[in-house]
């Protein structure tokens, strides 16, 4: 009887998100995050799952770990030719996987630890800019090749399947990271393909997202002004690019960046003290193209940091908890308690209010 339990369709809408960060920098195995995301099995439908892990390649922390999927050997050869031309490949290997009965049609999965040399003809571009350019170039010009992460000392692992199966397939229990984020997918706007699973990543930014960005059309055009080409037919990648643009390129403080993406309502701005109000007005006026509209809850990973935030009316769930040195952010409280049965504090942040985990002062991860 119990196994035949069915849920109304609408209750099943929405993805699952979980993120754990140890702010002391202590690294821990992927087993816990798999357990957490498994707890929310009903929130996904087997069309996509994925993870991002930070601090997993300490021995190559100064090199970009480019993880790619190829549908054809030709694509792999073409990509490798481009890589040889554009960067130094220090080490390459197949991404370790194990055969899994639930995982089929897997692409070729390979990773390259690379570094890029400054481009003397374009001195204004730093290595990150060049890396983004390379990432975009592969994804837009080489058919059947797809970069799914390209940051330092981090990596994404994703594919078509339930997230717990994907985790097992990628042998995540064998990695140790100080931040893990995970996503189980219930796709509604694109068909399931390996590249379309979450997280979406650029440099060391990785985003898992539950929701739909109604402002995608303008976010995409806004980002294009700054050289970001959205290639994935999915709204989540704009969040990754926006973080990269606002924080890395524009140098906005994290809270300002979050405010740009999920700003307070004008009626709330009207009630702010003068200086704060002027600032909030300026952010909205200037960064209107970065406003993320529609229901969403995201967890964003980056080096030394994990951020959770949701849309300004909080149309998608997000729960946070702390236990010891760890910050937990998940779609459901149960997903936290399954790995941290007795947290110190559990809370529900307001819409648009960022929750930030940061490595404690002095902690070096790479």
């Amino acid at each position: 009887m119990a196994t035949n339990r069915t849920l109304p369709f609408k209750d099943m809408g929405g993805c699952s998100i979980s993120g754990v960060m140890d702010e002391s920098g202590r690294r821990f195995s992927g087993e816990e995050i798999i357990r957490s995301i498994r707890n929310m099995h009903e929130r996904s439908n087997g069309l996509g799952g994925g993870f991002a892990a930070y601090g997993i390649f300490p021995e190559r922390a100064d090199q970009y770990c480019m993880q790619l999927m190829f549908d054809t050997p030709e694509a792999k050869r073409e990509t490798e030719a481009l890589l040889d031309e554009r960067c130094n490949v220090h080490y390459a290997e197949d991404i370790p996987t194990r055969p899994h009965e639930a995982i089929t049609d897997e692409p070729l999965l390979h990773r390259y630890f690379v570094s890029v040399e400054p481009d003397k003809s374009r001195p204004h571009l730093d290595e990150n800019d060049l890396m983004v350019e390379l990432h975009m170039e592969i994804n837009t010009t080489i058919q059947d090749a797809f970069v799914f992460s390209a940051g330092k000392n981090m990596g994404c692992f994703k594919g078509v399947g339930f997230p717990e199966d994907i985790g097992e397939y990628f042998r995540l229990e064998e990695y140790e990271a100080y931040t893990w984020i995970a996503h189980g997918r219930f796709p509604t706007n694109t068909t399931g393909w390996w590249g379309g699973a979450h997280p979406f990543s650029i440099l060391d930014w990785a985003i898992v997202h539950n929701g739909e960005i109604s402002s995608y059309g303008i976010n995409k055009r806004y980002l294009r002004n700054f050289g970001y080409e959205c290639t994935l037919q999915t709204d989540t990648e704009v969040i990754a690019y926006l973080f990269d643009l606002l924080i890395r390129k524009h140098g906005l403080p994290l809270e300002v960046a979050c405010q740009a993406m999920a700003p307070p309502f004008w009626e709330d701005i009207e009630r702010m003290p003068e200086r704060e109000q002027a600032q909030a007005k300026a952010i909205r006026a200037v960064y209107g193209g970065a406003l993320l509209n529609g229901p969403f809850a995201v967890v964003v990973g980056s080096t030394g940091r994990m951020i959770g935030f949701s849309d300004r009316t909080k149309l998608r769930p997000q729960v946070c908890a702390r236990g010891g040195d760890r910050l937990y952010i998940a779609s459901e409280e149960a997903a936290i308690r399954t790995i941290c049965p007795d947290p110190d504090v559990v809370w529900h942040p307001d819409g648009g209010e960022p929750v930030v985990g940061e490595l404690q002062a002095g902690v070096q991860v790479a």
Partner: protein
Amino acid sequence: MPNWLIEPDFVVERDPDRCIQCEVCVRQCANEAHEFDEELQEVFTDSTRCVGCHRCASLCPTDAISIRPAELEFRPNENWSAQAIRNIYKQSEQGGVLLTGMGNPEPLPIYWDRMLLNASQVTNPSIDPLREPMELLTHIGSKPQRLEFSGGETPQLETTLGPQLELHVPVMFSAMSYGSISYNASEALARAANEVGTYANTGEGGLHEDLRQYAGRMIVQVASGRFGVDVDYLNSGAAVEIKIGQGAKPGIGGHLPGEKVSADISATRMIPEGTDALSPAPHHDIYSIEDLRQLIYAIKEATRYRKPVGVKIAAVHHVAAIASGCVRAGADFVAIDGYRGGTGAAPTMIRNNVGIPIEFALAAVDSRLREEGIRQDAGLIVAGSFRCAADVVKAIALGADACYIGTAALVAMGCHVCQKCYTGRCNWGIATQDPYLTRRLNPNIATRRLVNLLESWAHEIQEIMGGMGINAIESLRGNRDHLRGVNLTDRELNVLGIQMAGE
């Protein structure tokens, strides 16, 4: 010589069973189509004088009057249409340039009607604007690419934003001068803009002393005739708009005949009473883009950089490049007026044949400015026949910051689009200076109607946005994913930058 080749446009029919001989129609027709025969004690109508403005029918207390097109049929001829033939009769009879008023009425495609909007279903909740915030607040002005913050515990904004127009509804009243429209109409536009929190535009006619109290919500225009322009005028408004062109008559100047230049208009325009007010076709100090830049900065200096200074251009073939040039010349906003834009008077041939549709102009300009990375540098206002809230939403989704409405505002005040503005005998008291007619427009009523219109449109815009699951207009602006085309060719879809319905 009798004008025997000139045929009536309309037939006015009076139902004798309903007519009560009250003479209301007689008193209301400035064209003297109705006449009361004292001897017979009966009203008669001369249909040849009817312009189809409906004033008599609207006020007839018994609905005894109906007006229909004159059914004098020529032998069917797709090429030699009745209008074409009649135009030739008229010109051969009277000579001269065919004149007309209002916007282009020709059966050219209306692209707004070929674009459809999106709405949320299941995966993304639509939002009820009656329950949830639904933000329309729009800022128009030059914005920096990025903001600078100083570090520290709480970030401090270091960037100073340039002057911005702040619109509570992304719809403004387009330039209509005092002179082309009556004082009461000008007053109503100014008051309504204040009440709603948007802007009216003086047009090129200067700003009447009594309307300066509303100038905080008015854009003051500087046109080729420079009527009414002095430093106080420039500083009195919320923004300054340099008018280069107008959608209804790109490349053409204006002419307000001396008989309309009353004492009041002469004072407002700063020209002698009774003299013709001639607006040259070009600004004679702007023969190229660098001259425009000089004027923009001259005005910015005169207004101490406290007012946005924009440029209004007609949508012509190279509009994208021209708009880009205006932005690079320092314009804080660019207003583009499409080929359906209205006018008080224009040569018919110009109005009906010059310019391009605003939909394409807008799409091209927004895309071009984004390609050049200068879209942030200027606000983008579009004009040229916005008929309803959906048109506005589509324009914003294509990339506009706001729309100008002219004809729609006039219609709200009672205009029946009879296209006879240029005669100065507007029976609705709008496009006239005749004191017998101007009093027909009670500015209190007109203000109320304009406010109602804008508020209705605002509600409709909010409803549409709510349906899309968007609660801030900045997420609609330029969001062409929410538009789909129907009845459009690939090239048209391409220029518009939208997908086909079903894609």
